[in-house]
């Protein structure tokens, strides 16, 4: 089977499992929503909230991503499916891109809902041009996060308490995405001292990030996941 | 006040290194006691 066919197969499988179990809606979204409410309590002033809303949305996304990544690999390890996937001789690149795509889609759904929440809770506003920048930056960031989440999620899956390593490994790595996505969103929402043109520069960084981890990750994922210790 | 910070940085740096070196040497000694020397290609 070609890597692309496997990618589609694995992505479809992951998304179908998610639709069936709805962990994203039942568990992750409430967690993210509560986080945003807590941010509002902590920051208290309304004008400040509008100013930092982009940062808060992307922070809530990052923390929720940890839960989604762990869930994505718990599904595999649950009934020995990860071993079964390896025994089926499914090419590692296919698994990597498949799970990354499924993860990116789930993150996009999450971001849409969180931006809606920001619209309500933090009364963020944006005009026509900003929408296009917002959507592109969310797409690029989600691809980057999906790839990196799958890469380090695969490394920290399995037994022997490896899961606790995921935040230590993943959070520093996604720093550029947090910075880039937040700045691009600020430009889209017209808050902060950042112009639309600069916003697009940040989107370029997000795209480079996703490309680099697309290539580097697909090479590294096999050896990382394959150590059948 | 300034000299205090300068002294602190020197003591912290070289004190820290000295402690770590001592720990490493102790572990090396304890390990070498538990096995024959031919495992040390560098000797």
């Amino acid at each position: 089977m070609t890597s692309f066919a496997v990618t589609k197969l694995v992505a479809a499988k992951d998304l179908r499992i998610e639709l069936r179990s709805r962990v994203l809606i039942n568990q992750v979204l409430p967690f993210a929503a509560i986080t945003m409410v807590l941010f509002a309590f902590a920051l208290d002033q309304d004008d400040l909230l509008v100013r930092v809303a982009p940062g808060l949305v992307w922070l809530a996304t990052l923390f929720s991503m940890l839960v989604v990544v762990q869930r994505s690999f718990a599904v595999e390890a649950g009934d020995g499916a990860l071993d079964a996937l390896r025994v089926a001789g499914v090419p590692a690149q296919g698994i990597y891109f498949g799970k990354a795509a499924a993860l990116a889609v789930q993150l996009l759904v999450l971001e849409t809902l969180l931006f809606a929440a920001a619209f309500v809770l933090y009364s963020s506003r944006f005009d026509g041009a900003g929408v296009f920048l917002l959507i592109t930056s969310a797409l690029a960031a989600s691809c980057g996060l999906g790839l990196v989440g799958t890469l380090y999620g695969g490394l920290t899956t399995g037994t022997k308490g490896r899961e606790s390593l995921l935040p230590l490994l993943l959070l520093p790595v996604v720093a550029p995405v947090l910075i880039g996505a937040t700045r691009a969103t600020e430009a889209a929402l017209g808050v902060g001292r950042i112009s639309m043109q600069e916003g697009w520069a940040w989107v370029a960084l997000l795209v480079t990030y996703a490309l680099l981890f697309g290539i580097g990750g697909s090479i590294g994922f096999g050896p990382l996941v394959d150590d059948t210790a | 006040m300034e000299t205090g910070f300068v002294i602190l940085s020197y003591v912290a740096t070289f004190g820290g290194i000295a402690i770590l070196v001592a720990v490493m040497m102790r572990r090396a000694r304890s390990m070498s006691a538990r096995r024959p020397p031919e495992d040390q290609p560098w000797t």
Partner: protein
Amino acid sequence: METDPVVQLVDVVAVLDRFPALAGATLTVHRGEIVLLTGPNGAGKTTLLRLCAGLLPPARGTAMVLGLDLVEQREAVRSRVGLLGHSNGLYTDLTITENVAFWGATVGASAEEVSAAVERMGLAGRLSDVPVRKLSAGQRRRTALACLIARRAELWLLDEPHAGLDAAGRDELDTVLRAATAAGATMIVASHEMERAGALATRMVEVAGGQIRGQIRGQESGTP
């Protein structure tokens, strides 16, 4: 050529976190055979199955499966081998058909092959749309076997396949295994149930201390 052994292990050592689960195992299995591995828990039966499935690299010795080297050509070996361990390797949120279809798709199996496999394991009809999570142990085992069939596995590695099945379930399992070997598959079964699995196996081998200790003839005669 036909006599080419499906599995050839020579003095294989396999290490699990610095414990030598296999300490010099030597075993040869030919096509169509059902070899039964017996022996106490911790003897290395499960490790041997996982090694043949390509999940565990041999630390020492040589290991060939289906004529391919387990270290160099591990990917190629894996796609032609099926492992049914204590866990069934299924997605419990998906239904039986979705699981079998997924595993079948990894080798490009057609829809007919998938439904045939589901049919063969007696899982067709209303049952096939139930998420695996809701199934009994026996039904899950049969789903996992249906996946092996859909994946056209040539070498079946089964770890305690009879565990948790009632008498009827066991008979059914035996018929399926015999039918699969008749169709050219080869099997290595690890089991404690000497009489049940013994009747099925063409050859019985005892595993102890991570090695193959002795060979007990299958049905023909009790002595090696």
